[in-house]
């Protein structure tokens, strides 16, 4: 069985029509004065899912998270958590905890009392609190730092205290607002996997807000790509990358070349697209647009080949051009190829060999080629 992105998932409740969503946003709108932060948004999140809200700043993702936490009330619409409408419930009565972007540790309390704060609010007996705090400290590997104050910790340690504090009450849902934003790159990569392990281990539902697509792709089961208060696409990372539903998503996630044209023939789940660059692309298309309609074609740089000779197989799409620029990134090399029409496309090739005989050089005449299933047809 073929699968997008070379990943097979065993956890996919969103494909099951009988599965009941754990969190539902139904026609939720949030306005701040004249500004609409979230615009008639409907979204389902399932139990035990690691769900990411991805978008540029100001797209409404943080507002959505804050509505789930209870800091903002929706202007209209319902938010349902585990069968209960929570739109009117204040934050201190929700079974949801949040890890803040700034960590929001209480500066006047030790690590221990920071973690135990939520438990004390619930009136848990002292010995049980101590036990749970110890357990949480162990979980985030900070046993030695129990008596320290937040300002005596490094950034990574603070992040773990914040995580332990938000997990201490065993919430039904953990909300994470840019959880790794303040960490340096190496620590961020380590922490991504720690978070994923933790989520698996505790069996919780995580909703994370991020503007970092790599972070979202690595951690999340599904990603909602947002723009201007609307969800543009909700899908697994592989689907978002390999089968973007719109020009916006294709462009937002990763690198992409988009060629515009007109459908010249359509049928059998395949179309022929005469693009403005002066050649015809034969490609598979899920729901093929009718002949004569305008469409775009999106193709990722790594799915194009750059060769000196024209491809032998005539069924392969190919166009001629000239090397415009070359970027050597170590693991791969990016070729910017100027097609005869003047448009520059980006193609990347993995540097699988250390030594290459006669590599392609600047200003050389080359062919870029790609197969029938390498790209996606965009209808908008």
């Amino acid at each position, binding site marked *: 069985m073929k699968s997008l992105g070379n990943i097979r998932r065993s956890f996919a409740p969103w494909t099951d029509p009988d599965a009941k969503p754990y969190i539902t946003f139904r026609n939720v709108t949030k306005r701040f004065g004249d500004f609409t932060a979230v615009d008639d948004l409907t979204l389902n999140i399932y139990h035990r899912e690691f769900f990411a809200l991805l978008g540029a700043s100001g797209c409404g993702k943080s507002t959505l998270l804050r509505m789930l936490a209870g800091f903002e009330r929706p202007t209209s619409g319902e938010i349902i958590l585990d069968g209960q409408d929570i739109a009117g419930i204040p934050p*201190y009565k929700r079974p949801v905890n949040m890890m803040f972007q700034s960590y929001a540790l209480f500066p006047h309390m030790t690590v221990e009392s920071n973690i135990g704060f*939520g438990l004390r*609010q619930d009136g848990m007996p002292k010995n049980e609190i101590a036990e749970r705090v110890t357990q949480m400290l162990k979980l985030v590997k900070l046993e030695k730092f129990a008596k320290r104050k937040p300002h005596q910790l490094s950034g990574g340690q603070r992040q773990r205290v914040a995580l332990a504090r938000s997990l201490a009450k065993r919430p039904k849902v953990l909300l994470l607002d840019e959880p790794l934003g303040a960490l340096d790159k190496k620590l961020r990569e380590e922490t991504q996997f720690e978070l994923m392990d933790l989520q698996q281990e505790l069996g919780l539902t995580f909703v994370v807000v991020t503007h970092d697509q790599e972070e979202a792709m690595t951690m999340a089961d599904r990603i909602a790509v947002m723009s201007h208060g609307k969800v543009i696409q909700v899908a697994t990372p592989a689907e978002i990358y390999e089968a973007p539903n719109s020009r916006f998503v294709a462009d937002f996630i990763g690198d992409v070349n988009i060629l515009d044209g007109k459908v010249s023939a359509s049928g059998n789940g395949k179309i022929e697209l005469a693009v403005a660059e002066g050649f015809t692309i034969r490609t598979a298309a899920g729901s093929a647009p009718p002949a004569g309609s305008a469409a775009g074609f999106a193709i990722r740089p790594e799915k194009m080949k750059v060769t000196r000779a024209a491809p032998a197989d005539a069924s392969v799409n190919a166009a001629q051009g000239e090397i415009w620029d070359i970027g050597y990134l170590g693991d791969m090399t990016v070729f910017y190829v100027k097609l005869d029409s003047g448009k520059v496309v980006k193609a990347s090739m993995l540097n699988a060999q250390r030594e290459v005989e006669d590599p392609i050089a600047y200003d050389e005449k080359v062919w870029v080629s790609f197969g029938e299933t390498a790209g996606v047809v965009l209808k908008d």
Partner: protein
Amino acid sequence: MNTWSRFNIVSVVIGFSFLYLPIVLLVVFSFNESKLVTVWAGFSIKWYVSLFQNQGLMDAAWVTIRVALISATVATALGTMAALALTRYTRFRGRLLFSGMVYAPLVMPEVITGLSLLLLFVAIGFDRGFVTVTLAHITFSMCFVTVVVQSRLLSFDRSIEEAAMDLGATPVKTFLEVTLPVIAPAVLSGWMLALTLSLDDLVISSFTSGPGATTLPMKIYSQVRLGVTPEINAACTILIGFVAIGVIIASIMTKRREVQRQRDEQAAFAGR
């Protein structure tokens, strides 16, 4: 550039003389043997002894301390509340007007504040005395507290309050357990400011005081009109001593905490 040019030395001497010569003179003559305040006749502490036997001055001092403690405390509570309201509810109609109105007493001439309070107390038939002085002091020192606390609140990270609520603390508990401890230094310095303002106020006290509620500054002022005695010098020296000790302790504490904090942060980032 650390040269002591003649110009620099002269500037420093003149500047500090301006500031401290009167005070030094006052302190020195409080230890004078003679009753004449300008003629030195040898060292003595007899004026301090007689000061503590002067019932009028002692009563006035006691009134002053009580007024200062009560008014500073009430002003701090009210001023903090005003500061919270003004920084938190930024979107209500007329906020600009309100914040302007809070600041107005800062620049209002004391004579006007005193007179208007007097007129108010007369109009509502309130007998002037301890209560009216205290109320007046609350009125004028509150805005100072508001200014101090408000400037702290502007740099306050609201997300720690949200975190507290998120973890199950009601708004009241959030304020008591998170907000107040964090802004406590600012509230305390607001309280200290209100206390000192109340201690040395003369104008407003004179307008709003009545029989049996003479404050120390009022008492000193009225005695000076009859002629300065070294007793007054002694009283002032004690006051100066208190203020100086307070300021020194406060600055040492701030400095220490800062140094400690820096050391801790360096240790944390060095990975220990």
